[in-house]
């Protein structure tokens, strides 16, 4: 009877040859992905420098510039998963039968076929079996007495789980791939930049869109600590999670120590100057001889100086130059700062422009009722947060743990089985048949089996002597 087409496909998927071919394809294509420059990570102009337009067109058309997100790579990984599933489903029932219904009572053909076995002549079935039982128990083989209609025997084994280990490893690999798939479909990554006191619920993914979070993140402070040689030691940000205006979580994050809320993770990714002012500290001295006072002012902030006069910080330029009577900002670094203060009088409604330092043509410093002196400038710093949502990562970590366990079982746990049955040889002499097998590391097991047999032999002798019977009978059987 010819197999139907779906059945044939299913069989092909489960064949080891298919699996190996698929794995070789994965290897070749991912190697290609590391040699050819990849799109999102490489800037477009660098791509154009590296490849000629024709080559780039071909690479782009074949998706070779973004191998790991190409539809055919995803298809390939899905096929690998299917192949693992097919291979496991096809082979598992057999292994399960073997696992769940172990062969316990050795019949004659099995006894003859088993390569590793030994015969010891004995006097008494019952006594011999109980000695063997004791030895197996001591060796950790958990022996059980098997009674059939016309025979009885002993069966002991260790590490039966070893028979299923391969399936554990394959299942864990599927779990990891599943987690990766979930993240590829439902996960996202983005970036969020905050300055001190600022809050936001909008994350910007790489593709230029905006993602709104159901809660807001506020930055209460951020900073950098340095080693004595000036290299950075630590970056930190104090973050609040706000839901409906309420703080629900507060945490200081550092590199390697993210904040997690609602399945979204916030990582310390960067830290730097915004080029904007945070706070300017000034001393204002009245011209009428009253005592001077200190004030700290932010951009566009208005502070009262006395009952009539207020001061507002209208502009702050961290690095200014004057050219043709105009003021320009040269850079965002705090090199050559200039501050523009506006004094307003409530009564007269007059406003006076004060510049620190005085800039000719713009300043009216002489007409101001106060003189100002800059004390300190605090620039605003931003903290850059990498934001990610990976709902599948738990499957990945679970898969990793299961795989670690599975690999240990695969490589280091050996399923060892021992059968012991009383038999009679051709001359009617009673003997103890001892046979054993292991599913791997066979030579080590042979050694161990030899030790077991020796132990049983010596204990049998002791019990025979203790029973005050002639040992000659035992020796005669040899």
């Amino acid at each position, binding site marked *: 009877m010819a197999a139907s087409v779906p059945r044939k496909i299913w069989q092909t998927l489960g064949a*080891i040859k298919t699996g*190996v071919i698929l*794995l070789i394809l994965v290897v070749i294509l991912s190697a290609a992905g590391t040699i050819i420059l990849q799109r999102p990570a490489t800037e477009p102009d660098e791509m154009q420098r590296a490849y000629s337009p024709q080559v780039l067109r071909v690479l782009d058309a074949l998706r070779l510039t973004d191998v790991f997100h190409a539809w055919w790579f995803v298809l390939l990984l899905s096929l690998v998963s299917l192949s693992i599933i097919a291979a496991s489903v096809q082979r598992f029932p057999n292994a399960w039968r073997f696992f769940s219904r172990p062969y316990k009572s050795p019949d004659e053909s099995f006894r003859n076929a088993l390569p590793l076995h030994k015969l010891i002549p004995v006097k008494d079935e019952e006594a011999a079996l109980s000695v063997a039982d004791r030895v197996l128990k001591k060796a950790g083989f958990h022996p059980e007495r098997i009674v059939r209609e016309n025979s009885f025997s002993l069966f002991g084994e260790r590490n039966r789980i070893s028979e299923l280990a391969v399936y554990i490893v394959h299942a864990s690999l599927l779990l990891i791939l599943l987690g990766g798939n979930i993240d590829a479909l439902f996960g996202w990554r983005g970036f969020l930049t905050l300055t001190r006191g600022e809050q936001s619920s909008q994350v910007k993914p790489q593709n230029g869109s905006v993602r709104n979070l159901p809660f807001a993140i506020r930055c209460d402070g951020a900073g950098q600590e340095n080693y004595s040689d000036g290299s950075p030691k*630590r970056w930190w940000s104090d973050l609040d999670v706000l839901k409906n205006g309420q703080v629900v979580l507060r945490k200081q994050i*550092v590199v*390697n120590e993210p904040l997690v809320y609602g399945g979204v993770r916030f*990582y310390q990714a960067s830290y730097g100057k915004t080029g904007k002012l945070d706070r300017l500290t000034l001393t204002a001295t009245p011209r009428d001889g009253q005592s001077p006072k200190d004030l700290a002012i932010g951009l566009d902030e208005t502070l009262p100086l006395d009952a009539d006069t207020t001061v507002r910080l209208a502009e702050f330029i961290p690095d200014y130059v004057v050219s043709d009577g105009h003021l320009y900002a040269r850079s965002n670094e705090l090199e050559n700062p200039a501050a523009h203060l506006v004094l307003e009088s409530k009564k007269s409604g007059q406003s006076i422009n004060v510049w620190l330092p005085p800039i000719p043509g713009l300043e009216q410093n002489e007409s101001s009722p106060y003189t100002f002196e800059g004390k300190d400038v605090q620039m605003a710093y931003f903290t850059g947060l990498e*934001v990610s949502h990976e709902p599948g990562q738990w499957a990945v970590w679970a898969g990793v743990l299961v*795989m670690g366990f599975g*690999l240990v079982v695969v490589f280091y746990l050996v399923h060892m089985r021992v059968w012991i049955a009383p038999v009679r040889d051709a001359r009617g002499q009673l003997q103890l048949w001892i046979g054993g097998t292991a599913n791997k590391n066979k030579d080590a097991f042979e050694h161990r089996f030899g030790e077991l047999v020796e132990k049983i032999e010596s204990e049998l002798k002791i019990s025979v002597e203790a029973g005050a019977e002639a040992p000659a009978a035992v020796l005669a059987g040899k």
Partner: protein
Amino acid sequence: MARATVEQPPAATGTTLVVAVGLGVAFLLFMAFLNVVKSGNLLNESNLLYASLIFYSGAGTLYLGFGITGTPAYIRYASLATWAGLIANTGAVAHRWYEAGHPPFASIYEMLLMFVWTLAALTLIAEQKFKVKIIGTVTMPVAIVGVVLMQLLRTDVHPLVPALQSTWLHVHVTLAMLAYAACALSFALAMMFLIKDKMKTETFLAATSLFGVATYLGVLTRFEKWGGFSVIAWNPEEKSEVFLSRGVRLFVVIPDLGWLLLLVLAAVAAPLVLYLVWRKTQNEAFLNMANRAVFLSILLQVLALVFFLLRARDGRYASLDADGLFPTALAASPFILSGLVGGVFVSLLYLLLLWRRSDLERMLPAADELDRITYKTIAIAFPLLTLMIAAGAYWANRTWGSYWSWDPKETWAAITWLVYAGYLHMRITRGWRGRRAAYFAILGFAVVMFTFFGVTYLLPGMHAYA
């Protein structure tokens, strides 16, 4: 030279070499001690490292003597010297750990320190547990090169940048070192299997030549116009690379070195070509020529190495990207240096095989025993590789919010894992034993080497730390 020594009775040679090496070690230690007494600080890292260099050199000489003559007495003293070197090396590691306050995995220097330590420890384990005595002949010279390389690198304790301050990093790197060491061991064992399995010496000739060609092709990616060779510029005061801008290193061009390396590539490829001609014509003359070509290629390789050492050590060179002249140093090009040294070393190993094959075979365990140990080392390496990748992914997830980003190093680690997975499947389900399994183990190690060196050196990526 090597042929002459065999004709003497082995016992006499045995004592002579042991005494000579012993005296050499004692003399060097004494000289070093005199120097140290003046400065007063006996047990610091560089002294300990120097001591381990002396002991490893003694051990290397004795192991090599064993490799050449097969005198069993050498092995005893060689292991003793290795033990002494390992103790000094452990002291250096401990000192470093104490000074830095973190496990020594943060810079190439520290990785090398740990690598040499692991190598020496594994040599002793392989020798005493698995009775693979010849292994020191291969590993000790590598350890010596490692310690010498360390002298060229920046040794001051580097503070860790924030991304590296994680226990998971240490777990990741430790597992990587262990896994790579186990892979290296499986490779060495597979090679020994092939020797024992009567694989033809000519095949080793082709493989040696192929390795040389691959190495020099990799090195020659730095070939510049007009026969120059570009290396990274080095700032001797800072003991660090010169950066053009963030993450972009400045390359300077050493003139004429490129031509020389190209010539060496031709010399290294010659045995392979002659081998192929021999395969086609079956004319033994070509094979003899090929063996002579190996000799010639060793001379040229050493010449290129010396030339590279001299040119890189002094002088200032122009750059294509910036005006002015910049110095460079050996420490700026550890990968090129290890490539060149590795090429010479592998060719020398081939000569050893060519001349002393029967002695080598006599000293090795039985072929199927070697086959089994190869499998066992891979059975150790594979779970370690798995956990190494997992720990790296976990660390990346805590640092960048992504456990897998298909960066070249990650991808190649996954490829390594797949290759060894392939080996295991073929062995377990298809019963691949012997040669085919050995080839697979060798392929696996080649991929490991590419992941370790090739990816850092040839491919772009964010694994900038290692």
